[in-house]
């Protein structure tokens, strides 16, 4: 069975935030005003932030300063704390190991956002809005599961949303393979952030296939997980700096 996994090489990451922008365009993430963003209302499925989070990012004296950055999609945990606490099964792990969110089911209790130690889940505080021209560039892709919208579909107010490893791209790739009458191969699909990555720091593939790039990289001595102590068994892997 396919087990999707992302590997992020922090050595190669230049913190350009390209992944964050690509994700925003691909997944129709609403834009919020600067004041709202300052108040912690910005939605970034794929965030880029300085590490460690709680200490002043710049270390050293100008011009010899040093800053570490990390980039964070959803960890798609095997033991996902968010899935465990959802009272209505609005979030679930599919057969291919992707933690997904059903916007039509979510009741907006925000327990998952509380339970997630990585803070990858975002809430729609207001009706999502786009400035005039931006709205025209929304991704028209739709992903419908049993009649309810997922993935890049525009979210209603009051529900939780999160990174899906661009699951609608996966569905599209599978449909294309089917239309061409051949088997779907795991290297036919990557999320938007992987496709756009400036430093080629992101890798994506099937962890179940021992020959895939991600499988090989996961055996690296630099391979590590974010907040390993959380017990969530995150699947997104990091290759540590240095």
């Amino acid at each position: 069975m396919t087990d999707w996994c992302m590997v992020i090489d922090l050595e190669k990451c230049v913190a350009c935030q390209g992944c964050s922008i690509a994700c925003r365009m691909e997944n129709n993430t609403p834009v919020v005003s600067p004041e709202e963003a300052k108040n912690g209302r910005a939605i970034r499925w794929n965030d880029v932030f300085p590490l460690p989070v709680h200490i002043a990012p710049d270390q050293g004296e100008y011009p010899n300063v040093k800053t570490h950055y990390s980039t964070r999609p959803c960890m798609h945990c095997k033991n996902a704390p968010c899935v465990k606490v959802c009272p209505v099964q609005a979030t679930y792990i599919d057969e291919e190991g992707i933690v997904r969110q059903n916007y039509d089911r979510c009741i907006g209790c925000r327990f998952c956002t509380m339970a997630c130690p990585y803070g990858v889940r975002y809430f729609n505080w207001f009706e999502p809005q786009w400035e005039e021209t931006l709205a025209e560039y929304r991704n028209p892709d739709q992903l419908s599961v049993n009649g309810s919208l997922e993935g890049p579909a525009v979210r209603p107010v009051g529900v939780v949303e999160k990174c899906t490893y661009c699951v609608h791209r996966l569905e599209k790739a599978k449909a294309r393979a089917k239309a061409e009458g051949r088997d779907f191969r795991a290297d036919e699909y990557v999320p938007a952030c992987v496709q756009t990555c400036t430093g080629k720091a992101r890798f994506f593939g099937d962890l179940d296939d021992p020959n895939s790039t991600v499988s090989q990289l996961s055996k690296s001595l630099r391979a590590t997980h974010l907040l390993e102590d959380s017990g969530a068994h995150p699947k997104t892997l990091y290759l540590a700096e240095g």
Partner: protein
Amino acid sequence: MQQTLTLHDRDELLTPLYQFDRKFWTTIAALVLVIAPGILLYIRQLVLGLGVTDLNRPVFWGAYLVNFIFLIGVSMAGTVISATLLLLKVNWRRPITRIAESLTVFGLMTAGLQIIMDMGRPDRLVFTLLYGRLQAPLMWDIASLTLYLLTAIFALYLQLLPDIALLRDTAPATAPEWRKKLYTILSLNWRGNKEQWTRLEKAMLVVSIFIIPIGISLHTVTSWLFSTTVQPGWKSTILGPYFVVGAIYSGIGLLFIATTFARYYNKHLKEYITEKFYENLGWFFIVMSGVWFYFTLNETLVATTEQETLEFPVVAAKLFGEFAPAFWGMNLLMIAATWILVAPKFVSDKPSRNLFLQTTTGLAATAISVVIFALLSLRLPALSDPNLQTGLLLAFFLFFLLALLGVTKWLKTRLITATVIASAFVLFGMWLERWNVLMPTLTHARLAPYTTYHPTVTEIAVTISTFGILTLMFVVFYKFFPSVSVWEVEEGRALEQGSGD
């Protein structure tokens, strides 16, 4: 003798139910004024979304959840206390059981409202029934809350039944027709024969036995909402019993305030709810404050010394940081409440000429200590000098001690006033305690920058409105039913006379 007393009882307890005087309408009007802004702002929140609150990432839960925990906490008192006292066959319980049990019902109803107000999609509430996952802690809470509410309503109804029949039989000719009809339907054809009494007593006993574990389960499960997550500060096994203890503690506080409110409202109640009740339940209140301090020390001390790098910022925020006013304010309120209950028991009634025991000294010292506490809480840059801060802190403790000493004599002669002040302190302190459990953890997330949370007008108005609704339910309910259980009081009198006391 017994017969005359009974008639006299009924007259005093039942007649006010049909008197819609000016006082009643003024109360209702005042309550509507208190409730209205919250409802209007909540409608605005429904239209615009939860963005009108100050909730953000990572502070996803706020004042509504604090209210929720607080309200289910205060609802603990009623039924569990009245059930415990019934099982222990304590006789002074009789005049207060009705108020206690109704508080549980109203508290749980308003607590349920908080959850709905906190939901991003209240229109999807029914999904919890359609697609509910029993593995999710929130579903345990919903199940427990529903069960507790239904059991509490059942317990209240059982206890009301003979009184409803009494109301049906004694309704004055001037009473409106629909009220008579209501009592007739609700009385379920109660005739008060021997078999009905036997069954009622058996049923009340069974409900009393069942409601205690159900009540404890609700408060424990609510703590599990937090302790089953991996957030720093919540990973604690002590939260369950801590919440239960806090619930009983604040519940007794609300019970005291509600009974005193009822006494003030219907002057005749003073003959039923006597000082004996304040004295006896007051002792239990003192014991609970001791247990509460034990748990608070446990919770704080362990987190301070356990060297958890992620938990320490949370504790530090409580002890010295932005949550210090709330944390120390809570502790000081509880200390003051305990002192108010305990200290008068150790002084004599006689007026003293000792300067430290004068009421004026006490009040002046109270004012000064409040000012110093406010100065310390505001963290003015002008007062940032460490020596000055230490001086202020020492002055605060000195004046706080003087305040406690000074008011003791005054409190000695006013048992009920003292109990109400202590109850108000405990209630406010317990609200702050819930706040101190939730907010420091929420503002100190692992992978998001530390943030702050200041409730907006919407949240404050909705909170005020919630307590207004609680009071309104209380006032309206006791216009329909007597606030003292007539049959239980009569039974108590009969028992007392029978045993020759």
